[in-house]
């Protein structure tokens, strides 16, 4: 099967990125690396914002975030996601919604 590239889908969306002020942060990278075995955020995030690096670390880039809240809810065991809505006016701007 051909590889599905979420970036191609996100490319159609409109964003106003709050540069340098991500609205979601991983609280402690060590928790992802050493304590979290499932790293569900890297599978469940519908925008593919979370990447499982080969070395066990998880990296987060929020630019394509759809603000659904999945990562906030899925990280139940470790509560390692600091999740706020973007500043007013920033983030995803749905044309259709």
């Amino acid at each position: 099967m051909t590889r599905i590239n979420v970036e191609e889908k996100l490319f159609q969306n409109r964003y106003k990125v709050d540069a340098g002020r991500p609205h979601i942060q991983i609280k402690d990278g060590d928790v992802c690396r050493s304590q979290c075995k499932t790293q569900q955020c890297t599978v469940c995030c519908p925008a593919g914002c979370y990447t499982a690096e080969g070395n066990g670390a998880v990296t987060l880039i929020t630019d394509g975030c759809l603000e659904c809240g999945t990562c906030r809810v899925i990280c139940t065991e470790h509560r390692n996601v600091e999740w706020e809505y973007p500043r007013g006016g920033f983030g995803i701007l749905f044309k259709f919604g």
Partner: protein
Amino acid sequence: MREKFDAIVVGAGPAGNAAAYTMASAGMSVLQIERGETPGSKNVQGAILYADALERIIPDFRDEAPLERYLIEQRFWMLSDDAYVGSTYRSEAFNRPPYNRYTIVRAQFDKWFSKKVQEAGGLVICETTVRELMFDGDRVAGVRTDREGGAIYADLVVLADGVNSTLAVKAGFHPELKPKDVALAVKETLFLAPEVIEQRFNLKGEEGVAIEMGGNITQGMVGTGFLYTNRETLTIGVGCLLSDFAQQKIPPYVLLEQMKTHPAIRPLLEGTELKEYVAHLIPEGGYNAIPKLYGNGWMIVGDSAGLVNSVHREGSNLAMTSGRLAGETVIELRAAGKALNTANLALYKRKMDESFVMKDLKKYRRLPDVLHKNPQFFTAYPELLNGAMHQIVSVDGTDKKSKEREVRRSFGQRRGLFGLMGDAFKLWRAFE
């Protein structure tokens, strides 16, 4: 100077707009705060509008609201890997005004609804995120926003900030959502010329079709898919319990992309062009997951309160109705000179209990648990039904009695006699 309003509404979706419109129309000073660039720019839905709930708020909405197509046909499909069994209900009764259900584009619809709030005298400020509620003792006294000097006061705050309702969670009104109580849905909006949509779906003018789907498209997860016709776009989406996504380890966009290749779906999407890709959480915990709906100086409405009837794919109508009832509660209490405290705001809960909102949610209170524990309804049965249809429809020289025996055998083998009886009982209990 300390700014103070009769009410602050956080969020400009269907619930918040219904509440703000109802209160502003009664002459209250209402401030509505929306984090998006415009109302609707953060909001996601399938989206089907149920006319009745809006009609009770704005009776002549059909004259001016941006509506896509009115639905004259509803299809239900159960899909196996390469087939589907379906039923279709199409009626001329749905082809006579006033129409009952419409497809809508939320970015446009919510903007219109917000304009009505403003026409009714409500003050709407956008591009402003509410960070937390402010308390005076145990009474909610206002909100703090991300604007400079962002404290704003009111006699009442209506929480309509959506499924994530971080405000309610921070204030302790609402426990954190659990992965088994929310569905994650992803959706694409696809452009297709109106005349092609009409030919492809057997429609004329502004007629529309909704297709709801279950079965192998969710790859063993509890969930459903849909395909709706807008005026010049199609929306296709799929949603499954978040706990199932985590367990099955399927990225949601992969699930959607694979669903789009199903032989029953792919031809309907031919020649379309992707315009937008969205994701949204849907509260699916049902009746047992509904938090307390009111307290001293506050009420909670819509998705923020988990008001979704997942069986019937209804949410926006529950949202609008809860918003309206919250507004009407305040109007009544103010007219009687009563304080907006916990004891008096209990009237909102009583109104909700008397409405279809709580009655329907209560009726299906067992269902989320049953579906969660019995994925066979989404896996084994669609396959068995498709297999049975194949036996019945195909003519291959086998006598009919043998075919019937084969169908019975397939059901018995897959679920067992007691399994079949148990499944029937579980469903009956869940829907009774």
